[in-house]
């Protein structure tokens, strides 16, 4: 009886040990997978950030007062109004 109980305990301990070891491996695999995801996401954020910077640069270059004034004059025939032509809306 005593021998049977001891082996049962040893078996249970070994099972727990094996479960913990497998758990550790599983967690490690998850960490690596998340690490890859994080790395890819970071890369995506970085490339989007760079794209945003590029677009912001293009937008700001196209909307400078000099650029807008030139476009307004050339394409729309507009000019700066004389003060007396300005009507203020209440």
């Amino acid at each position, binding site marked *: 009886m005593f021998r049977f109980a001891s082996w049962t305990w040893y078996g249970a301990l070994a099972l727990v040990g094996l479960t913990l070891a497998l758990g550790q491996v599983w967690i490690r695999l998850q*960490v*690596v997978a*998340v*690490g*890859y995801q*994080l*790395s890819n996401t*970071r890369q995506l954020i970085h490339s989007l950030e*760079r794209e945003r*910077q*590029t677009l*912001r*640069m293009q937008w*700001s*270059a196209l909307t*400078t*007062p*000099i650029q807008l*004034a030139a476009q307004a004059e050339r394409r729309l025939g507009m000019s*700066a*109004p004389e*003060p*007396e*032509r*300005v*009507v*203020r*809306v*209440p």
Partner: protein
Amino acid sequence: MEKRLLIAGAVLGCGLLLVLGRLVHLTTIHNEDLARQASQQHLKKMEIPSRRGAIVDRNGEPLALSVPAESLFIRPRKLPTDANRWIVPVATALHAPLEQVSASFRSAEPFVWLKRRATPQEAAQIRAYGIGGIDSIETERRFYPQGTLAAPLIGFTDVDARGIAGIEQTYDRYLREEPAELVGERDALGRMILAHGVAAAPEVLNVRLTLDIGIQNIAERELAQAVRTTGAEGGTVVVLDPQTFAVLALAQVPTFDPNTPAAVRPEHRRNRTAGDCYEPGSTMKVLLTAAALDAKQLSPDEKIFCEYGRYAVGRSVINDSHSHGWLSVTQVIQQSSNIGAAKIAEHLGKETYAAYLRAFGFGRLTGIELPGESPGILPLPHTWGRIHLVTASFGQGFAVTPLQLASAYAALANGGTLMRPYLISEVLNSDGKVVEARNPQRLLQVVSRDTAQLMMGIMEQVTEGEGTGTRARIEGFRVAGKTGTSQKPDPRGGYSARDRIASFIGIVPAEQPRLVILVVVDTPRTGVYGGQIAAPVFQAIAKQSLAYLGVEGEKPKLGVTPAILPAPSTESVRESSLRQAVAVKTPEPQSEYGPGEETDSDEPNFIGMSLRDAVLTAQRNGWQIVTQGSGYVKKQTVRRTAETFVYELTLTSLGGDQP
């Protein structure tokens, strides 16, 4: 049998003990070294390139940005054997000299930069060639979207993105973020595994200026045109807000494009508005008179004998451009009499005059956030002889920066209080939250409020009647100002017989100052006088800037139809106004009309009018209206208030069809 088992067990036990001992040894005694070695094998450090914050104007319009770029490099020893055939395509793709690319390909060094801060397109083209031994690293380059606009004050950066001029230099410590490192494991393919997480990226700070690119653009455009048409060597414009001393515009000609700073000579990149000084000429007469009035050495109604245009001071003779007899203090300023100013200065005394000049901020730095500011040149009064005092009265013999002069006049516009001019409004983090704010800083009360007000009145006369600055006048606004014409020092000694600096400084609107504008034109060839050369430039800048800021002048007289108003005709409007002016007393409260509906015959009918016509009609008749939307009026409602009737107009949306 048992003995053999025991021996085998003992051997195995000893072996196990040895392994355990080694395990303990490795994990306790040399553990740190070994852990470091292991980390070096599987951990990878990646440098995150430093970023640079943006510089924006007071409305958030970008003036300096960082944009993605790549720096291309060659490892010449790893180039393929047929690498020479790629020299021409690479040079073409990078817009680089052929010799330079060729030298890079043939270099004996293990690492050579091919092009730093190449555009993404250039880098993509090189990558498409697939040449072994050529690689790139990500970086950023500075981009100035407004081109030449405000270039000397924004400055520029070097190839390592360090600010080396202008605001870029002064605020480098805020704008430049230190490079950071990212640590992760790497797999067999060298890919990064961020198993240890990602640290938050360092914060990038942005700088907001007080500058307004709308006003800056107006100032630069008008100044450039004036320099071109007068054949001048250059010019500067300073625009200050006299309530806060915030710098709204600093323009100069010549200037440069900070995207390509090396394309111009270094002197074109210098900030002239705060870094260069000049002899201010007659613009100093206002400050002299303010000092004399404030020191009670002069009364406003005092008469000064102007010697009929010729006044001997020792062996020198002072002349006026026109001969005058007795002039009042106002007339001395209005007609810019040198002799009148000389007599005021002699009456005031050199010690007092110099003390006031120093109090107005001359001879010392203003503290503007720009590198290389000049304090100007203001000799100590004990070195002044009589002739020095006399010439100093009309702004010769000492030198000021345009910014100092604009600040001194801003003090008069600000009730006599001098403040520190400033260019940086806020430092912001990437979320737009204010990290550091700069507020207007009061320095001292230079002259009393009464004196300042008196001087504003005197300066208004300069742009009126027989004043020298009538070409600065703006319809609908009261303008206070002063012309200046000064001789330029001759490098060989004395003053140039031909070269002059023409200037005008004005404050507008005089009754409630919003802008102080100084225009300096250096060595014009079509004339010499400030009133002739600089005053029209002031007028053009002030007129457009006031419209831009929405500052209203006196309203046009009733019955005058603005030229742009297409319909209804003046007569029909007048006729209908007369009819409606009677009827307006009796509309039904809360009466409401929509498209196609007739209003009460006695009520004004706005239906179908454009927003512009409705506003003009209401202004002419003194009716109060409230508008909602834009386009054409589709509904009108009359509401009775305690005093009058208010017409609430609902309009179609912008671009909607005319009902």
